[in-house]
């Protein structure tokens, strides 16, 4: 279940804000060890403060950092590759994003020097840093940014989530070598957050041209980052070495590591063993079963972050019987959330009521995810079934006073099947559940095309919460819907637009809280848990939290499993 995933869930898309990757909890286990799919996350709400190493002497130059990743990537091409957490972690060593999130959750320039919106936030003028060169010697100009934008937008997969947010022509315009304009379809105060990850990783245009002729080159990325590509063997090891000409050295301090080696190790136990054996220096994991092991070992530093994605059950609201909100609500009421948490979470993490953790300024304390109320569910179902509903093709939607439904997951997977059994048990009082185990491709396909009732899913991890709009807006319902539940609410779309508009932080928080309420009231999602990412490092690893932006803002030590290397040194 963990091993063969790497190539399966292919990229679907990028939003205005950040490129998103299919978030398929491997059959539904949110923390039990799925791999290789998420997106960028919010830097502001780490639930356990990453233990910053006390300054232990002066940083030293040298050494190779060995990083354990949960998966390998297909390629490191920001315009086409599926960059999940592992991919983003690798990418940020070779590429520099145009912008980045600070530890406080603000977006600040990184490879860009500045960005200035016009008065109504519909045109953004970007200025690049001067004198930056790519690893292949190509100088950085806006031509690179424009080329990359166009290639990305035209990619059949990645472009899916870019296209809806830009006009077909004149989305970008060059002013001079270092200045350009972005013209998104709609005004957005938070536009730069779109350029903090995959869409913002600027690759050498020379390399992108070469890539068109020889796509195998996507294994050998060329960026401007603190490290340069050295060698790569897929599914085994990827090595980057220090870029001694990195532009960031003069503004953000030296790069200490001689090299980084990335080892994709999908099996979480093995990854842990490698770390304990000293074969790795740092790793990330979502396997909560391992957290205790890390805590027990005093030589390891563990930081857990659950501010990112949530694991939830997702309901197709476009298809009977779940087109009726009573049935959706009944399913939520019937769900034994507490039981799930007790059984599958190994005492780690926490139950989720909404897409934000309680520490988040956007958390809406009034929104509580219902559950564990079988009587309530039964009452709703009795009412619904009492109306003798039938589907369009005439088949009865209820049998014996219970609603007929299908639960779909991707398999084969032992854990996913256990979870399905568990749900069935709590639902069976009011629902006749049919199991539908699909291979992962078909699972994704059917979810995207709306051929499902209920699936387990992971999502809502954008660092800028407004960027999760791609999953929520009416415009993303269609043949392939990124709005998987196919729930369209004008009110919600209006809210989302407003959130993108300039506002004071308090206003913004209020709007997001309204959004949370709206999402809850749709009963399209049954929130289960906040997914936890852990980053674990040995005592030889220092300086993770010493990263600063070119402007001097403190940057997060790690973000939902994503690791950054420009400030790390080894003792």
């Amino acid at each position, binding site marked *: 279940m963990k091993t063969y995933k790497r190539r399966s869930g292919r990229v679907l898309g990028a939003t205005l804000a950040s490129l998103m990757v299919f978030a398929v909890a491997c059959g539904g286990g949110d923390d039990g060890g799925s791999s290789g799919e998420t997106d960028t996350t919010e830097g502001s709400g780490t639930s356990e403060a990453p233990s910053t190493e006390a300054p232990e002497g002066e940083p030293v130059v040298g050494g190779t950092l060995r990083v354990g990743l949960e998966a390998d990537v297909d390629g490191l091409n920001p315009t086409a590759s599926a960059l999940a957490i592992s991919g983003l972690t690798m990418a940020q060593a070779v590429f520099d994003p145009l912008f980045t999130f600070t530890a406080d959750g603000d977006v600040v320039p990184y490879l860009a020097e500045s960005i200035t919106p016009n008065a109504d936030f519909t045109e953004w003028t970007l200025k690049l840093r001067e004198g930056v060169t790519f690893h292949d010697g190509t100088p950085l100009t806006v031509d690179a940014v424009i080329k990359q934008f166009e290639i990305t937008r035209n990619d*059949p997969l990645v472009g899916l989530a870019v296209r809806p947010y830009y006009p077909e022509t004149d989305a970008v315009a060059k002013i001079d070598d270092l200045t350009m304009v972005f013209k998104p379809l709609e005004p957005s105060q938070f536009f730069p957050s779109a350029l903090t990850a995959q869409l913002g990783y600027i690759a050498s245009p020379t390399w992108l041209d070469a890539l068109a002729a020889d796509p195998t080159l996507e294994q050998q990325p060329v960026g401007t980052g603190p490290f340069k590509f050295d060698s790569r063997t897929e599914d085994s090891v990827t090595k980057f070495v220090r870029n001694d000409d990195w532009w960031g050295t003069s503004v953000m301090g030296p790069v200490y590591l001689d090299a980084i080696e990335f080892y994709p*190790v999908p099996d979480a136990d093995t990854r842990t063993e490698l770390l304990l054996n000293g*074969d790795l220096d740092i790793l990330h994991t979502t396997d909560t079963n391992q957290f205790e092991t890390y805590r027990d070992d005093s030589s390891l530093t563990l930081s857990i972050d659950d501010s990112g994605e949530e694991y939830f059950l997702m309901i197709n609201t476009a298809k009977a019987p779940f087109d009726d909100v009573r049935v959706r609500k009944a399913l939520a009421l019937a769900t034994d959330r507490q039981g799930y948490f007790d059984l599958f979470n190994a005492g780690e993490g926490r139950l989720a009521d909404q897409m934000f953790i309680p520490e988040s300024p956007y958390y809406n304390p009034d929104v509580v995810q219902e559950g564990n109320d079988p009587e309530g569910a039964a009452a709703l179902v009795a009412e619904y079934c009492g109306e003798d509903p039938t589907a369009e093709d005439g088949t009865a939607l209820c049998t014996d006073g219970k609603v007929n439904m299908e639960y779909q997951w991707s398999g084969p997977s032992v854990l996913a099947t256990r979870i399905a059994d568990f749900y069935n048990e709590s639902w069976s009082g009011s629902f006749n559940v049919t199991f539908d185990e699909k291979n992962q491709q078909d699972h994704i396909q059917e979810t995207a095309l709306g051929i499902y009732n209920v699936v387990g899913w992971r999502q809502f991890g954008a660092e800028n919460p407004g960027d999760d709009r791609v999953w929520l807006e009416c415009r993303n319902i269609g043949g392939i819907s990124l709005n998987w539940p196919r729930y369209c609410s004008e009110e919600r779309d209006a809210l989302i637009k407003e959130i993108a508009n300039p506002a004071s932080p308090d206003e913004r928080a209020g709007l997001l809280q309204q959004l949370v309420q709206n999402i809850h009231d749709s009963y399209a999602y049954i929130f289960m848990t906040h997914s936890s990412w852990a980053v674990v490092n040995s005592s030889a690893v220092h300086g993770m939290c010493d990263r600063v932006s070119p402007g001097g803002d403190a940057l997060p030590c790690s973000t939902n499993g994503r690791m950054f290397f420009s400030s790390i040194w080894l003792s």
Partner: protein
Amino acid sequence: MRYYVQRVALAILLLLAVSMLTFGALNVLGDPLFNILGPVAGDVNNPDSIKMIEVAKREFSLDRPLPVRYAIWLSDFVRGDFGVTFSSTGQPPVSGVISERLPRTVTLVAMAQFFAIFVSIPWALITASRAGKVSDRISTLNAFFLVAMPNFALAVILKYVFSIKLGWMPLTYVADDPLRSRLFQMILPALTIGLPVAAVYQRLLRTDIITTLQQDFILLARTKGLSRPRILLLHALRPSLFSFITVVGLNTGALIGGSIVSETVFRIPGIGSTLVESVLRNDFPVVLAIVMIVASSFVVINLLVDFAYTLIDPRVRR
């Protein structure tokens, strides 16, 4: 000579049949479009998606009838062009995937075969010379244990004992390490698939040696005053190797099968793990290429086995 011409012709026919079956089965059972286009492949009501689907079909020749596609594939294949992978870019070329990964699997299987042979021969000699004694019975139990245990269980046990508890062996394979370390890293994976096979070889060889030991020429060797080990090694072993060699040849298939598990557990990017991935992704060209390589090596090995008979038994030489 004529015999070998016939054998080779038969082998080619066999490979053709295998390729046809595989080609047919893959195309009937799966739809590769998803791997190329993602969910777009199923979005058949959207004109944009339809356009993309059509382009992809043309690009990957999926719009042609099956026999035509087979013919195209075959003519490319015999010219050493294994085609393109069914991914959005059609990259990397299958031959690239194979040439990068095949050597690792070949090394793994060869090492496993080496272990299997060089564990089973002394083991069989010792147990055959003590047939029926306690040590022989214990060894029989061990052999059954090894044969009965699933490969992945053995992998996990070996890994736990030798890598985690004792720390003698590395946990995983690292493709960029120097050759010597890589060979070292392959020992446990090779043992994982080699040991059960060694047990099979041992059972077989032990029986054959026991039979040989009852031959008159063994008694003659004894009357010469030769020591027991000498008799076992110089007189009993070689004439006992016939079925052993046959089974060594046939078991190459089992070893390649085992390599799938072993490569997965020990993180060796070989063709075994690639095969599984490709099957799951409906990446037919890769699957086909691997199936053909495995089938060809199987055929070649069994031809070699034929040849090995003549090395062992002068009576078969012509």
